[in-house]
């Protein structure tokens, strides 16, 4: 009961802090929106042979979702850790009953809500602005665990980044440097057959690949061809590893 009270208290404070930074709220939702508008509605996909955006619109839904699932936790959790460290908040928290794991659970919960809302917005815009249709089946509900697990994974990753970077600027630079190649080279916007053969194993190393493949199977239909449960299990295992690493990385002392 007391653990739940601590996590709730930390999460409520983090939620209020986020909601009251209007520019942060605006750009958290504007970034994926502008991406869908530019690539889904203005550029439009060209289902011909070769080139970028050569697949049907629904093929790129995992990529659009990846923008929030990847960038938001990396930059938000990383920046929050840098901010906490700069403001001596971890020094204060270290003398309270709140553990590092509880802190990360609370901030992951906040990110899950934010990214869940942003994902709904993306899915709605994709359907509205492109000719994509998302099949609704019994397994569509598995989108939720895919998104939640990916958020957990990248919150853990963000915590590690926040620990390693020595400032908020450093966190943002590092998260962009890591997230941008991951976004495009994880079977999201660019399919494997468009990449050099030697690049294949690297794509398999990206945690985002398993999110993208699983989500594509659920939103693009059987044409995607990947078993979503296998991808979900791999994503779950990676989420555990990254979350534990992130919780351990959160500073408690100097």
């Amino acid at each position: 009961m007391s653990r739940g009270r601590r996590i709730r208290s930390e999460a409520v404070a983090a939620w209020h802090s986020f909601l009251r930074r209007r520019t942060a709220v605006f750009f958290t939702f504007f970034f994926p929106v502008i991406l869908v508008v530019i690539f889904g509605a203005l550029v439009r996909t060209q289902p011909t042979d070769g080139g970028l955006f050569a697949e049907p619109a629904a093929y790129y839904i995992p990529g659009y979702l990846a923008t929030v699932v990847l960038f938001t936790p990396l930059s938000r959790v990383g920046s929050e850790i840098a901010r906490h460290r700069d403001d001596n908040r971890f020094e204060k928290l270290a003398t309270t009953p709140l553990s590092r794991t509880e802190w990360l659970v609370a901030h992951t919960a906040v990110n899950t809500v934010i990214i869940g809302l942003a994902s709904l917005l993306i899915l709605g815009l994709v359907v509205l602005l492109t000719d994509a249709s998302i099949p609704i089946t019994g397994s569509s509900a598995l989108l939720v665990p895919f998104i939640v697990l990916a958020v957990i994974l990248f919150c853990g990753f963000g915590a590690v980044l926040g620990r390693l970077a020595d400032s908020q600027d450093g966190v943002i630079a590092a998260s962009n440097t890591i997230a941008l190649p991951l976004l495009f080279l994880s079977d999201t916007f660019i399919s494997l057959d468009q990449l050099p053969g030697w690049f294949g194993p690297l794509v398999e190393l990206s945690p985002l690949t398993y999110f993208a493949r699983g989500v594509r199977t659920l939103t693009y239909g059987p044409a995607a061809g990947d078993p979503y449960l296998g991808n979900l299990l791999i994503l779950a295992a990676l989420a555990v590893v990254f979350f534990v690493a992130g919780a351990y990385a959160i500073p408690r002392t100097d």
Partner: protein
Amino acid sequence: MNEAVVATGVGKTYGDTVALDGVDLTVAEGEVFGLIGPNGAGKTTLIRALTGTTPVTGDIGIFGQEPTAVDSERIGLLPQSFSPPARLTAREMIDYYAGLYDDARDTDAVLADVGLTETADSWYETLSGGQQRRVCVGTALVNDPDLLFLDEPTTGIDPVGRRALWELLESLAAGGTTVVLTSHSMAEVQRLSDRVGLLQDGQLVAVGTPDDLIADHGGRSRLVIGTDASDAAASALTAADFTATASPGEVVVDGVSPVDIGEAVDVLSDADISYDSLTWTEPSLEDVYLQLTGESFEGAMTPGASAITEGEAEGPTERAAAGGDQ
């Protein structure tokens, strides 16, 4: 009496810089212990060592346990340069930190303690610097701690707020709370502390009650006489067995008790020497600080007068009299 804090041979280095060098310290339960010292002396590092937020060498016991093992429900901390989430209200801030404890105090009671009932629903970032610091103090009080660490708690707080906070700390101490505080305000430390430790270059160079430290290191009381005839005044006073030193525009008479002031005035009157002012000062903790640290404010002080540090107008006992014209 049981000991709340026992530290033995505590050491800490940052690269080649020695922050703490074999510090031994005990603080009894219910005691208020003040840490003073120049910037960089190691005060904050010692607070961090005692709260287990920085690894150190040596042994530290908090209520008989390692700092990281002690029940955190019993500890309160206000770190130096602490800045909580800026866009929470004062009430939300207290609620937030209270929510981290199983047995927290009532939020309204904490807000009343730190004098923020009226501004409880203002965002932290819109509060004045002093009000913000009072919110931060409040976050250290939410769990009604047995041992409270306060690293420069009154920095930026105006005199009224500071006095209110002093009264709050005095009431906490009266209720049995052990307090370890650091401050650059000697008046604050002198008023609040049962014992004081002076840190310099990572070493605890003096520990004692304020009165003992003043008696041992503070020097004697002084009478400063503002006069254009300083040489003549010094000669007359010396002839009357006073220890007087002349400098342009004034004479400093050393070791003058309050009852001797009238006699000194009579000496000046008998010698037909006029004076502009009489200022009597007794030694304070600030004199101890200056004596032991070897610091001074050359050119900014008159001999014998105490330096006034930031926000410390109520500091050393000092009485000035209007000048007389004999």
